[in-house]
């Protein structure tokens, strides 16, 4: 699949449509309950599909290797982001730690979009990548908190327990992993009965969801006040650095091209659901205008438009 093919896919075109509509200040909007419903549908569909694939293929040492490498990257990537945010980005320790946590964690929507693009091009990633995604959500939050020098310390009466509930029982992760285990239990035969809902409608729903994401990303960028050109440049450089490290790790593990590309995209992506909520509670003085704008308004669009075709092409060339 060429870069042009990716850019002209309906999913990407709907994302661009949303971005352009928001840039033109159109009143187009997707009602929040519908956006949430579509998000739940996508998590359930991708989780189920992953579980069914693993039930057919069985557990493998490759899967364990990818899981360990993914957790290692999630722990380690925030250190690189933190160093760059402090030196080039000019952020203080607190904001650097908060932003760094986002870049070690993952974006589920980026993963879903990458999976759709890779599947369409005949390089479907292994089903176990859903579990790897879930494992990569959390370690970066610990690293980010430690780097921000807040660690696990909290003022008396602060919402300490709520942070960990948000981190470990975040709705997206619960649904994704839960659907993965449902898929693992039911297997291919029983999945056939529900596949018209979860397979046939998947790409269409993803189009509408990315329309909303385009609207949200550009509106977030327009409303952000703490962003500088240097931070924007880091929002583009970090996915390239992290994705390259992820691709390198995937190649060392001997993953196939589609799985390696998905692994690279997990490393390249930045969280904008689980981590912002955790940072809001753990590091309330960190500026959400910076960490949300970088992850949602800069890195997410960059990955959708440039990152996915780039790492897919690299993975095919290096691992194909």
């Amino acid at each position, binding site marked *: 699949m060429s870069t042009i093919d990716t850019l002209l896919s309906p999913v990407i075109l709907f994302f661009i449509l949303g971005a352009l509509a928001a840039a033109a200040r159109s009143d187009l909007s997707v009602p929040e309950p519908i956006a949430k419903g579509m998000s739940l549908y996508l998590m359930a569909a991708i989780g189920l599909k992953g579980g069914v694939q693993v039930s057919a293929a069985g557990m493998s040492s490759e899967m364990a290797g990818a899981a360990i490498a993914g957790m290692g990257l999630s722990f380690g990537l925030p250190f690189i982001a933190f160093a760059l945010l402090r030196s080039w980005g000019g952020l203080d320790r607190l904001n650097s730690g908060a932003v760094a946590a986002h870049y070690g964690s993952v974006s589920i929507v980026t993963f879903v979009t990458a999976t759709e693009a890779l599947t369409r091009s005949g390089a479907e990633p292994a089903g176990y990548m859903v579990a790897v995604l879930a494992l990569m959500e959390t370690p970066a939050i610990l690293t980010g908190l430690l780097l921000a020098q807040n660690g696990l310390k909290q003022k008396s009466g602060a919402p300490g327990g709520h942070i960990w509930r948000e981190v470990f029982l975040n709705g997206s992760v619960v649904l994704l992993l839960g659907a993965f285990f449902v898929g693992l239990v039911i297997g291919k035969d029983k999945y056939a009965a529900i596949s018209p809902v979860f397979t046939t409608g998947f790409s269409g729903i993803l189009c509408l969801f990315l329309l909303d994401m385009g609207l949200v990303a550009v509106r977030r960028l327009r409303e952000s006040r703490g962003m500088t050109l240097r931070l924007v440049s880091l929002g583009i450089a970090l996915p390239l650095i992290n994705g390259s490290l992820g691709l390198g790790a995937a190649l060392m593990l001997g993953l196939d091209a589609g799985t390696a590309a998905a692994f690279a995209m997990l490393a390249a992506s930045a969280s904008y*659901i689980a981590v912002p909520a955790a940072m809001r509670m753990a590091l309330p003085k960190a500026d*959400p205008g910076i960490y949300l704008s970088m992850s949602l308004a800069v890195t997410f669009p960059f990955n959708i438009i440039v990152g996915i075709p780039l790492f897919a092409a690299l993975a095919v060339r290096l691992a194909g």
Partner: protein
Amino acid sequence: MVELVRRKRIDILIDAPLCEWLAETAAGVGISHYTLASLAAGMGHGGAWRDEDVSGAVAKRMFIAITGEAKVQALINALEPHLGEYGLVVTIADVDVVRGERF
């Protein structure tokens, strides 16, 4: 003629992820009945926020409770160390309520 009783109403504008913590803090000082209202969008010292933002991290809720003055004061005391860092906006008003024994 329905009897009106004077009570205090406390409204707290708070980040959505912190609602559960606030409800538990309120319960800790004896305010166990409250209402949480979703809010569409706004602009504050921390910048713009809107409920439809996909992360939900900067979405806001309005915590509303009606109770006696002592409990309101106890809640403010409990929240005082966190008012600045969590950007809580707290307003208190005198209200006349019917069925005052319920508040």
